[in-house]
C-alpha cells in the first residue's frame, strides 16, 4: 500500500472522523461535552485494555533478550529526544529555558492514545505487532522528564527545584505513581500473570467494546484539542507551532534508524516509531506542574495536544507505518 493509500484509509477511519467531529464541535463553540468522570473512565479503560492485552501477548510469546533490548532502546529514545527538542526550541523560538525544557519533556515521553490509534490502524491493515511494545510505552513515559529536569538544572544551577535529594525522591515517587503509569503497568502485569485464560475471561470488555470506546475517547480528545487550539494557539509563535509539526518527524527518524538494529516486525517497528514521534499530554503535564511549575501549560499542552496529536493521528500514523515498511 502506498503512503497516500495508507493516509486516506486512516483519515476515513471512524477513530479519526470522531476526533474530527470533536475538534470541529469545539472550534464552532458547540456545547457538546463529555462529563469529566466519563472522560476519566474512558482513559482508565483504555489503559486497562491495552495493558492487559499486551501482558497476555507477552505471556503467550514469552520474555526474551529482544524484549530487554527494545525496552532499553525505548528508554534511550525517551531520554535523548528532549535534548534535541530543547536545543531546537532554544535555537528557533524565544521560549525560556524552563518552557523549552517542559516542552522537550513532552516530546520525549509518549502518548498512549496515539499508540492505541496506531495499533488499531495496524489491525485494520491486518498487520500484527509484538505485544510487549505496551511495556516499552510504559518505560518511555518518564526518562524524558528526568532529562528535562537535568536540562533546567544545567542551564540554571541556582534554580533549586527539588530542595535536595529527598525532594527529588518524592518527585520520582509521584511521577512513578501517576495514575496512568500505575494502571498501564498494573494491567500489563495482570495480563502477563493470567495469560490466555485471563484474556478469555475479560475479552468481551477489553476486546469487543474496545473500538467503540476509543471512538468515544477520541471524540473527547477532539473537543479538548479544539478548545486548546481556540484558546492556546494565540499564545504560540509560528516557530513554536512549526516545532510541534517537525519534531515528531525528527523523533520518528531517530526511532527509524534505531529500528534497523532492533529486529522488530513491521507492526512493531511502526509502533516504535509512533511511540517516539508522539508527545505526552497526561503523565508529563502532571509531572511538570510539580517539577517545573514556572513552565506555562498553555505552551506545552497546546503544542502536544493541539498541534502534534492531531498531526500524528491524521498524517503521522500512516507515514510511520509506511516508514516501517522501509525498515522491515
Amino acid at each position: 500500500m502506498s503512503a497516500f493509500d495508507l493516509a486516506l484509509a486512516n483519515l476515513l477511519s471512524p477513530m479519526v472522523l470522531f476526533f474530527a467531529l470533536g475538534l470541529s464541535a469545539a472550534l464552532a463553540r458547540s456545547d457538546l461535552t463529555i462529563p469529566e468522570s466519563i472522560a476519566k473512565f474512558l482513559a482508565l479503560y483504555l489503559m486497562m485494555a491495552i495493558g492487559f492485552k499486551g501482558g497476555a501477548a507477552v505471556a503467550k510469546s514469552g520474555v526474551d533478550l529482544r524484549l530487554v533490548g527494545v525496552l532499553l532502546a525505548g528508554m534511550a529514545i525517551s531520554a535523548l529526544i528532549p535534548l534535541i527538542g530543547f536545543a531546537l526550541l532554544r535555537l528557533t523560538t524565544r521560549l525560556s529555558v524552563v518552557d523549552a525544557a517542559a516542552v522537550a519533556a513532552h516530546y520525549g515521553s509518549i502518548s498512549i492514545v496515539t499508540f492505541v490509534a496506531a495499533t488499531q490502524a495496524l489491525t485494520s491493515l491486518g498487520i500484527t505487532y509484538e505485544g510487549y511494545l505496551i511495556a516499552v510505552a510504559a518505560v518511555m513515559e518518564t526518562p524524558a522528564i528526568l532529562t528535562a529536569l537535568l536540562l533546567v538544572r544545567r542551564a540554571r544551577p541556582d534554580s533549586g527545584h527539588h530542595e535536595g535529594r529527598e525532594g527529588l525522591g518524592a518527585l520520582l515517587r509521584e511521577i512513578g505513581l501517576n495514575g496512568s503509569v500505575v494502571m498501564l503497568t498494573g494491567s500489563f502485569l495482570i495480563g502477563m500473570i493470567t495469560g490466555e485464560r485471563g484474556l478469555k475471561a475479560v475479552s468481551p470488555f477489553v476486546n469487543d467494546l474496545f473500538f467503540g470506546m476509543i471512538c468515544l475517547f477520541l471524540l473527547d480528545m477532539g473537543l479538548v484539542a479544539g478548545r486548546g487550539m481556540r484558546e492556546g494557539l494565540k499564545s504560540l509563535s509560528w516557530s513554536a507551532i512549526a516545532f510541534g509539526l517537525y519534531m515528531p518527524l525528527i523523533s520518528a527518524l531517530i526511532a527509524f534508524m534505531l529500528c534497523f538494529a532492533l529486529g522488530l516486525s513491521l507492526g512493531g517497528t511502526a509502533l516504535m516509531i509512533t511511540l517516539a514521534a508522539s508527545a505526552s499530554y497526561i503523565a508529563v503535564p502532571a509531572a511538570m506542574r510539580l517539577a517545573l511549575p514556572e513552565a506555562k501549560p498553555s505552551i506545552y499542552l497546546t503544542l502536544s495536544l493541539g498541534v502534534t496529536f492531531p498531526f500524528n493521528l491524521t498524517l503521522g500514523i500512516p507515514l510511520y507505518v509506511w516508514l516501517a515498511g522501509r525498515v522491515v
Partner: protein
Amino acid sequence: MQTYLKKRIAIVIEQPALNRVLDALDRLAVTGYTVYPVIAGRGREGSWRADAMVSDAGRMVSVVCVCDPAKVDSVVEPIYKIVARQVGIITISDCEVIRPDHF
C-alpha cells in the same frame, strides 16, 4: 447560641499538588480539612474548565480547614512553602464555630 471565633484557611491549588498539601496538613496542627472539587475559573494564567482537561494537570481543587487564630501562622507558612511556585490562592478569613474544642 454561643459561637467561638476561629480562622478559615481556604487553599485553591492545582490537582497535582494536592497530595503534598494534604500530607503537610496531616503533619501540622490542624484537626481536619475538607477537599472540594472546583469546576472552572480564570486567573493570571488564563481560564480553565475541569471538563476541558485530558489530565489532572490543569485541574484545580479547593482545600478548606478551620483552626484556632493562634495557629494560623504555623499552618499557613509551611503550606505556602509548598504552593508558592504553583498556580493557586490562599485566603484566610474569620469564621465562627459552635464546638471550639474540635478545631
